């Protein structure tokens, strides 16, 4: 009796069971084990990425200098030179493809998210876009070759931009659609409730709210397109000269430069390929980081 009274007394004031963390406890052990597993697998997954970056910096960093960006690609067996024409070329081709893919992909997404719903056309477009995201990039090149290069009669920056745009459109469209759909419907209802038309609601509420998500989609598509080589081989080809503002002529690009020089018997060209790889990765990285900062909402700052 006395014992029972003693064991019950603290229960009224203190907690029933101990709340202290115990190391040997099965629950605690399981928890730690899962954390360790998740962290180590993540590190394993990051390993290839960091080893690639490491190699790029070690092998490509050696040639980094201002002249790398201001000089033309050297011919076979020659020393010196840079990759200036390829950097400019890549930016030009990507600009062309963005100009083509952004309006088409974005407006397509607005249709899908705001007007299409479950309509047959919308379902079809969505299905086609999903299939196109998996399109082997070489097919985009072949398509642009058949439609642009053959009809205009020459390899050109424009053809390269078209090939890239085909790769970008589905990504831009699908990611923008999900960004638009992620806008809470209660915000739309608030706008409708104020007497906004559908167009006003889409233009003033839905699109501005979805901009960060849309830009993320565009950046993803850009990053992918920028590294593509195959579609450019059939379309933009390459050029050892500076871009002179003519979109109808072949143009240099970093990815094709890497493709051409990496297998070259001349050591200097191989190191230029490394440098070009480092520059390409850096451009993609810089674009991504800028987009992240540019699209950050005020309340997250």
């Amino acid at each position, binding site marked *: 009796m006395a014992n029972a009274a003693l064991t019950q007394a603290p229960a009224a004031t203190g907690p029933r069971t101990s709340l202290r963390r115990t190391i040997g406890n099965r629950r605690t052990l399981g928890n730690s084990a899962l954390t360790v597993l998740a962290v180590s697998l993540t590190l394993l997954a990051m390993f290839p990425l960091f080893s690639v970056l490491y190699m790029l910096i070690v092998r490509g960093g050696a040639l980094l200098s201002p002249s790398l960006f201001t000089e033309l690609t050297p011919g076979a067996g020659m020393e010196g030179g840079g990759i200036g024409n390829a950097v400019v070329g890549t930016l030009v081709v990507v600009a062309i493809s963005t100009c083509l893919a952004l309006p088409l992909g974005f407006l397509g997404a607005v249709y899908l998210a705001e007007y299409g719903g479950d309509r047959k056309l919308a379902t079809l477009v969505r299905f086609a876009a999903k299939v196109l995201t998996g399109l082997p990039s070489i097919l985009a090149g072949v398509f642009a070759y058949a439609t642009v290069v053959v009809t205009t009669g020459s390899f050109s920056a424009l053809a390269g931009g078209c090939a890239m745009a085909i790769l970008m459109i589905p990504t831009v469209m699908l990611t923008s659609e999900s960004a638009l759909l992620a806008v809470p419907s209660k915000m739309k209802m608030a706008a409708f*409730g104020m007497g906004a038309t559908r167009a006003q609601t889409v233009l003033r509420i839905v699109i501005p709210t979805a901009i960060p998500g849309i830009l993320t989609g565009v950046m993803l598509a850009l990053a992918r397109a920028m590294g593509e080589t195959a579609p450019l081989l059939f379309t933009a080809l390459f050029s050892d000269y500076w871009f002179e503002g003519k979109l109808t002529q072949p143009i240099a690009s970093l990815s094709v430069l890497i493709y051409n020089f990496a297998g070259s018997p001349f050591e200097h060209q191989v190191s230029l390929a490394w440098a070009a790889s480092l520059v390409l990765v850096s451009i993609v990285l810089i674009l991504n980081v800028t987009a992240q900062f540019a699209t950050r*909402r005020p309340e997250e700052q």
Partner: protein
Amino acid sequence: MNSQELSAPMTSEMPDSGRDSAAQIAAAVGDAPVVMDCRIKTLHYGDFLAVRDTDIPIVSNEITAFIGPSGCGKSTVLRSLNRMNDFVNGFRFEGSVHYRGQDIYAPEIDPVAVRRSIGMVFQQPNPFAMSIYKNVAFGLKLNNFKGNFDERVEAALRGAALWDEVKDKLSSSGLSLSGGQQQRLCIARAIAVEPELLLMDEPCSALDPIATRRVEDLMLELKEKYTIAIVTHNLQQAQRVADRTAFLFVDTSAGGRTGYLIEYRPSAELFEDPREERTKAYIRGEFS
């Protein structure tokens, strides 16, 4: 009180006859000017009969409160008064809602125009992902307002008892506010355009007693110029502010959950001397 618990025994015991007749509703209005005459015969969401037989006249320059247990269709009725239910798939409406003599469900009516003159504050706070200032100015821009924006925005924020809290951060996002502040922002946004009729769905459910009182004061002030219909779970609030009160209940007898009007009367009469049994039980339950 848990109103759902209450509803089960009551509906099975009592016949449908315990509700106001058309004549009683007409008598409750008397010769007061009705700005909106809501006559719902049936209101469906798909196959689901959500509300039936609900006639609620809304008198000009008054506050009309809708009370009743959760799920009885108060929000549904309120939303049908500015055609917000049009956005629900499968929504069907039989009956009429006459606003200043025009049936807003008539085919020639533009629902957008209806919503321009009938404002709404929703049950859930729903500010836009833009600055506090722009939130309030949104409706003004929609209506091509030509006057002084700053003045109107300040007046609206003061009216919603929010000005002092946000006057130094008008450019920060409306989403950065607390839940109760967001709700007051939505009230400010709705009153900035000075709608002739303002529908408010539980506008004070996320507010503390002080902010609640200030919103109530605002409603009393607004009714000098405008008309207000408000849904509330707070019976004291209905007693404090509402000139007339409509009590809705839910009929579960046929296996469905159909809301309908039980009693519509001046608030003082309804709360002090309820006519219908269900009204008595609901009010008693709430106070016990």
